[in-house]
């Protein structure tokens, strides 16, 4: 697809040549910064997962189990907060985005490399503060609802400050990406020749820049309430506890699209490559990312239907909520249309991409139950919600993330993964996931409330099934991590373009040289012209 590309094959160490702590910690190379984000977020994925297993273990028995109810509160708060703020929000944008946006637009680096490094250090500083705040462990849930969070004995103020810093890093990253995409594209790469991952990341960055300040401000208000007794949220002082929820969800709903849009971008890259077909409806997929980003700002009230919100507002928010389904449906239909009559090969990135589609459809189709006012009353704060958001966040985003990791592993490390191990892990994860979380739909439908440490004994069988499922899931994750670790040292050397993809990041060596490209390529075509003679021959 592009001229001026060096004959790429994977022998050198590329950007990994330099070694030593300093060469990483002070590197301005977007690839190294991306890798540092990757390790950091992956670490918190595993820690958060550990808390999940503890949660599930505790829920095996209906009565008091091996931990007190108070400790249980700490478990689900840490599980939720770590997974959301330190893993899933930064995972794809900051790690894979940093690594691949400059490469996919054919640039040497992001627009502001120093700002990029500063973003990582601010992120780390935030993490340090978050960890420091755990001297008095959090028990508020990851949503920090007032009035409890304004009064809780936990170190809410310190944690807010930590998350404030994490948010700041997120804003800087988003800003950098927007400007990179606007100014650093290789000659010939028009907007309609941009890879769809870039479109997804562009929409994501817009949300990051516009929504994150709102949560920062909310944390400041919460801190002011705790430290100085200002009555923003305390009705006794003329405040309104629902105001907190409005602010919180004005950020946190759009942020679910920060989680999912990049994953959708990854899926849009993988499906055409492994179906050997041009992507169906390129423009529709690109624009639907922007549509989702914008519509996502209008629907935050659907988290508060039973909080005592006015019924007029509830009806408006319910109506608007359904509007997000349209652009999402557009994407899913386009992926499926791309698969149709493709010559599909089932290598591990594709397996995870197909798992994404399957699980995300289940997650997506259960959304309307929660978005409708009547059913919401029955299902609110039950395990149905827990199942719904795990199908979308874990079944969606985490699968997209894993698809991306398997797809780009050869490029990032210069080594191939073991396909055999990858397949085994995928099967375990798929089975474990569904046993764990589908059970939760049923539990929720029958009325099992979430965040309860103890529960009526009639729910126990289902809880046991879910817990056993979580072990299978954990086994899958362990096999996968083993595969990554082993292949990092002993995987066979990766060629420049093992999958025969047409996007620019594959048109250079694996691992890429420090400057990404010896000569900046000139783009002459869009990156999905499979089937054209000579295109995509690996």
């Amino acid at each position: 697809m592009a001229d001026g590309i060096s004959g790429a094959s994977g022998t050198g160490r590329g950007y990994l040549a330099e070694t030593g702590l300093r060469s990483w910690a002070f590197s301005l190379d977007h690839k190294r910064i991306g890798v540092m984000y990757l390790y950091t977020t992956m670490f918190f994925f595993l820690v958060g997962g550990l808390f999940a297993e503890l949660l599930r273990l505790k829920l095996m028995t209906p009565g008091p189990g091996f931990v007190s109810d108070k400790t249980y509160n700490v478990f689900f708060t840490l599980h939720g907060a770590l997974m959301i703020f330190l893993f899933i929000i930064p995972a794809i944008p900051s790690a894979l985005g940093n690594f691949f946006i400059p490469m996919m637009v054919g640039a040497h680096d992001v627009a502001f490399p120093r700002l990029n490094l500063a973003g990582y250090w601010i992120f780390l500083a935030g993490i340090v503060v978050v960890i420091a705040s755990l001297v008095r462990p959090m028990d508020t849930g990851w949503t920090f609802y007032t009035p409890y969070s304004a009064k809780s004995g936990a170190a809410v103020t310190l944690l807010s400050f930590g998350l404030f810093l994490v948010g700041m890093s997120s804003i800087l990253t988003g800003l950098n990406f927007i400007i990179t995409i606007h100014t650093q594209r290789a000659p010939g790469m028009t907007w309609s020749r941009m890879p769809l991952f870039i479109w997804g990341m562009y929409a994501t960055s817009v949300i990051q820049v516009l929504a994150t300040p709102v949560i920062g401000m909310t944390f400041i208000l919460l801190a002011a309430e705790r430290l100085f007794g200002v009555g923003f949220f305390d009705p006794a002082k003329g405040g309104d506890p629902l105001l907190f929820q409005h602010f919180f969800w004005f950020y946190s709903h759009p942020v679910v699209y920060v989680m999912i849009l990049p994953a959708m971008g990854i899926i849009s890259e993988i499906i055409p490559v492994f179906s050997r077909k041009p992507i169906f409806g390129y423009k529709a997929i690109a624009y639907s990312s922007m549509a989702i980003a914008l519509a996502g700002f209008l629907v935050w009230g659907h988290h508060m239907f039973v909080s005592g919100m006015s019924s007029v507002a509830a009806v408006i928010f319910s109506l608007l909520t359904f509007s997000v389904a349209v652009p999402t449906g557009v994407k899913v239909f386009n992926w499926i249309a791309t698969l149709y009559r493709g010559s599909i090969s089932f290598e591990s990135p594709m397996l995870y991409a197909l798992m994404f589609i399957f699980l995300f459809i289940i997650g997506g189709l259960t959304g309307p139950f929660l978005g409708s006012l009547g059913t919401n009353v029955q299902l609110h704060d039950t395990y149905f919600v827990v199942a719904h958001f795990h199908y979308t966040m874990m079944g969606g985003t985490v699968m997209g993330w894993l698809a991306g990791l398997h797809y780009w592993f050869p490029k990032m490390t210069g080594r191939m993964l073991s396909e055999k191990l990858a397949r085994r892990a995928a099967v375990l994860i798929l089975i474990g996931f569904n046993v764990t979380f589908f059970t939760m739909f049923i539990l929720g439908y029958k009325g099992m409330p979430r965040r309860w440490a103890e529960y009526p004994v009639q729910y126990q069988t289902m809880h046991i099934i879910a817990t056993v499922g979580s072990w299978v899931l954990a086994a899958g994750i362990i096999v996968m991590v083993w595969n990554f670790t082993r292949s990092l040292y002993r995987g066979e050397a990766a060629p420049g373009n093992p999958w025969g993809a047409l996007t620019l990041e594959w048109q250079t060596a694996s691992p890429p040289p420090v400057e990404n490209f010896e000569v900046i390529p000139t783009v002459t075509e869009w990156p999905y012209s499979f089937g054209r003679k000579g295109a995509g021959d690996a």
Partner: protein
Amino acid sequence: MKEYRTYLIVWASLVVLTGLTMGVSYLRLGVGNAIVALAIASAKAALVGLYFMHLRRESALVRAFALAPLLFLALIIFGTLSDTLFRK
């Protein structure tokens, strides 16, 4: 030199507008007070944005990004109001 003159003029207008806000607060206009105060404040914000923050000389794209947060502020206020106004 011309640069500085513009800045001085803008600064002076900001001072005048501040004085105006204070002056108007002594009049009894009912709701009008809030409307006038907000109008003057918006004019001041626009001056700062256009001249001190150089938005006047920026591309349409940069201006769009600078304006977008205002829209979002309006959205939050509108959404939250739609809730409080109709609460029983």
